[in-house]
């Protein structure tokens, strides 16, 4: 049973009606297949038109959907192999940020990304995808390892932001994020970053400072959450829809602003309706991106990455 978002109510009503009809038709001789197929068509087209016209705030909700595929789903459905690597060798193992060796269509890569979890227990274990310094320091360690052994780095970014907590501050959350960004920029190997759900602020940039950045159709990427922006600039979190609109957080807007390079189409009605298809599309596009970068030298890759960021804001 899928959780419907507020704006999906008309779709939900249609789908409920279809389910009812199906149930009623069981053991009944009345032929309702005509009516059923009419309703199904209507429902599918309503879903398609709803998702074709999502506002930035609606996309934010889709990006945060509880059933949206996360790191583990992508690993399962897009990669043939995953060998998890744990720990920062300094303090601990942070399960908000996962990483390890992975194989994608025969390509060996270092895969790193946020994992939000899918139920209460796993969400707590993964700290809702909010990384701590040890998570970012693990990412740094894995990026450096990848660099030394020529493994391209692929990241899956999906976080509301780095964890805001006393201990995270004490252990240098800011320093860990800054160093992780630096580690991305220093990589002598190809790096492809993907924004798969929420790209929340510094906690996202730390894993997304790549030469190629791709983004799911309904993912969002922003400097601060719409709620956070609204509560500061509008002085009420209720203005989050306005803040989302003003900040330009969607993949389509960010492609126009040249902040991302490419959009990965999601299954109809969002990635949460078909995580397998979503993962396969993502895997296919990451593969294409990696292949396009594979002939480049370390110097060319770094230059491409540096130029990308240096030109932002210039006339």
């Amino acid at each position: 049973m899928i959780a419907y978002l507020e704006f999906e109510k008309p779709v939900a009503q249609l789908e409920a009606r279809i389910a009812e009809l199906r149930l009623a038709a069981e053991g009944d001789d009345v032929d309702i297949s005509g009516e059923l197929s009419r309703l199904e068509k209507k429902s599918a087209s309503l879903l398609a038109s709803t998702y074709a016209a999502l506002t930035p705030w609606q996309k934010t909700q889709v990006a945060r959907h509880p059933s949206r595929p996360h790191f583990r789903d992508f690993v399962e459905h897009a990669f043939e192999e995953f060998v998890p690597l744990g720990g920062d060798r300094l303090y601990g193992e942070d399960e908000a940020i996962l990483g390890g060796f992975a194989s994608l269509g025969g390509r060996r890569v270092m895969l790193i990304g946020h994992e939000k979890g899918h139920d209460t227990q796993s969400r707590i274990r993964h700290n809702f995808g909010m990384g701590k310094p040890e998570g970012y320091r693990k990412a740094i360690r894995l990026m450096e390892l990848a660099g030394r052994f020529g493994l391209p780095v692929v990241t899956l970014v999906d976080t509301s932001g780095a964890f805001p907590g006393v201990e995270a501050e004490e252990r240098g959350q800011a320093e860990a994020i800054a160093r992780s960004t630096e580690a991305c920029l220093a990589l002598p190997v190809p790096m492809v970053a993907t924004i798969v759900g929420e790209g929340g602020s510094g906690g996202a940039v730390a894993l997304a400072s790549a030469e190629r950045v791709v983004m799911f159709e309904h993912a969002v990427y922003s400097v601060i959450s719409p709620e956070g922006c609204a509560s500061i600039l509008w002085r009420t979190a209720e203005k989050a829809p306005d803040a989302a609109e003003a900040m330009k957080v969607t993949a389509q807007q960010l492609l126009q602003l040249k902040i991302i390079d490419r959009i990965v189409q999601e299954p109809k009605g969002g990635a949460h309706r078909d995580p397998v298809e979503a993962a396969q599309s993502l895997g296919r596009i990451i593969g294409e991106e990696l292949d396009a970068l594979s002939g480049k030298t370390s110097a060319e890759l770094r230059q491409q990455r540096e130029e990308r960021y240096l030109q932002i804001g210039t006339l």
Partner: protein
Amino acid sequence: MNWISRVRNSLPFLPKRETPDNLWIKCPKCHEMLFQQDYEDNWRVCQHCEHHGRLGADRRLQLLLDDGFSMLPQPEVREDPLKFRDSKKYVDRLKAARAANPHRDAFSVGSGNIDNRPAVVGVQDFHFMGGSMGMAVGQAFCAGAQEALDRGCAYIVVTAAGGARMQEGILSLMQMPKATVMTRRLKSAGLPYIVVLTDPTTGGVTASYAMLGDVHIAEPDALIGFAGQRVIQDTIRESLPEGFQRAEYLHKHGMVDMVVHRNRLRETLATVLDYLQPAKAA
């Protein structure tokens, strides 16, 4: 009350182009009355309790650099490509900030010497829209780094910011990797990059160039952190420890090398620079 006036009113001392010389002001920390001219002459440090007030970019550069330094031109950047507006247009906020400040944005760069040692100093000014990091700040930061690369000398950056400039959305966030490209170039060139953290340094500024220095110097009692205190309190629902996110607290937790009083900042930088001679090209 709009955002600007809210921030300005919350500042203990408004920056003024011309300081009236016969005004008394109250120290926000010890509440002693201070003769404003004395306070300015003392680089905005309270003579009674040593509270370090916020220093504007020009005064900061005067404090650190030998006379005769030159200012880099403020770089031109894309202005308001998002056409951002909340209760007010971002372009209007910018206009107001420019009217109230001597510079076009929150980051200024001086190129000269610190006690005869060549140095480029970049200063982030909290008085300009809370020092927030947008495209102009990022571009000026990079221009300062490039000047240091061209001169083959140290780059010293004095940070002060509430964080990223939200009105520039994702473009402000992208200043984090952008600035980091340049700190890496300084490193590759064997040039020292020194950060002076002043009150307040938070958010995306802390999580990028403020924490990538070869040496980190903080001013006493400066607020330095990643997450805002209210956000942290809302998350953990506990009270925060004494002195949380203050310079001394960061020193205790290993994030800054030293906490240095403003009146010893220049000599401290000079000493550090003596040890960090630009490396011979490898």
